[in-house]
């Protein structure tokens, strides 16, 4: 049964995440397999939007499930499974980002490349304001803008606007007060908006919020 992603044991399909996790805690690997199928895509996408490297994102997502499996005996049902899993994933992403920050040389190179690309995109647009940008191109620019945000803005923004979590869940995952979560998400959104405004609103020059 394991390894066949398209097959999901019918008995498990109707069970909640928490029920499956309790089964997994008791050694039921098939129940855990169902959780992997439910959250595999979400975890890969979360890691990808935070780290920006698909291969590493898959590794981080797999590691997230391994850590969840290892920590299953300590899983408490008072915590929502998806929040608990996101917390593990976010911690692994932070570790990966920290590891990357330590690789000063390569990171500086990447940052320079990203900045140059962003500046070129904006300069191109300013030179040719009538260009109608394709939706895919806009998406790419938005994701580039998200990726260029500082970590303390990027994490809450990804959790809120890509993962679709609530403010309460983000507060629990990041371990910061809800007021701070709201403030950071607002500022992150405004920063992304400022970066992509030239592409979606040609008449917006000079309308920045000074953030």
């Amino acid at each position, binding site marked *: 049964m394991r390894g066949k*992603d398209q097959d999901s044991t019918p008995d498990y399909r109707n069970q909640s995440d928490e029920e499956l996790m309790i089964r997994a805690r008791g050694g039921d690997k098939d129940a855990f397999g169902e959780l992997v199928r439910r959250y595999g895509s979400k975890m890969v996408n979360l890691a990808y939007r935070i780290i920006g490297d698909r291969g590493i994102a898959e590794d981080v997502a797999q590691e997230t499930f391994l850590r969840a499996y290892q920590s299953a005996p300590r899983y408490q049902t008072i915590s929502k499974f998806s929040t608990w899993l996101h917390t593990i994933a976010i911690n692994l992403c932070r570790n990966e980002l920290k590891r990357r920050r330590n690789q000063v040389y390569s990171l500086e190179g990447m940052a320079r490349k990203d900045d140059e690309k962003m500046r070129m995109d904006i300069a191109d647009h300013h030179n040719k304001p009538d260009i109608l940008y394709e939706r895919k191109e806009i998406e790419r620019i938005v994701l580039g803008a998200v990726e260029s945000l500082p970590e303390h803005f990027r994490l809450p923004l990804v959790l809120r606007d890509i993962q679709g979590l609530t403010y309460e869940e983000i507060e629990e995952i990041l371990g910061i007060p809800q007021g701070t979560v709201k403030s950071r998400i607002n500022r992150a959104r405004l920063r992304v908006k400022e970066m992509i405004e030239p592409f979606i609103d040609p008449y917006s020059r000079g309308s920045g*919020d000074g953030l």
Partner: protein
Amino acid sequence: MDCKKVSDLLSEFIDGTLNEAERVEFESHIDQCEKCQRNLRNCKATLSILHSIESIAVPSDFTENVFKKIEAYETGKRALTFAAIAAFLRIHRRTILTGLATFALAFGIAVSVLYRLTSSDTASIADQAPTTDAYVIKEVVQPAVVPQDTAYRETDESLWDELRVRQERYVFPVSSENQPF
């Protein structure tokens, strides 16, 4: 409410989490401020793009790879346990062997002492035991060897026999006291 405040509350207005009073104030400002209207419109457009971004596809063998990692972890954990035990035995080899040898020796001695104590006869116990105990034991043992009555009888008879022999074979030596002058 000024433009700065409106900018601070932009996200919450879009998410619909403002309280009624804040929402009324926010909308009142927006209605009159073209710059804030543009900000709100562009922020909504940005979020619309963000929310519609397609998820990247997950490889079909993702679940399988997760379980491979889990199996590797469990195998590694078992191997680590064996390795830890082997390392412990290797490091403490001398202590363990000395301990085992000492135990074996003590066990051997204990068994041998117990064997001797349980298999010896009463006499030997009496011999080894302290004097007072020996007396008691001897007192108990003695009657079993020869009945006292018989012994007395035998002794008396043998005395009389000896007397008879003396009477028959010898003349009683006459002491000087019995002789006539």
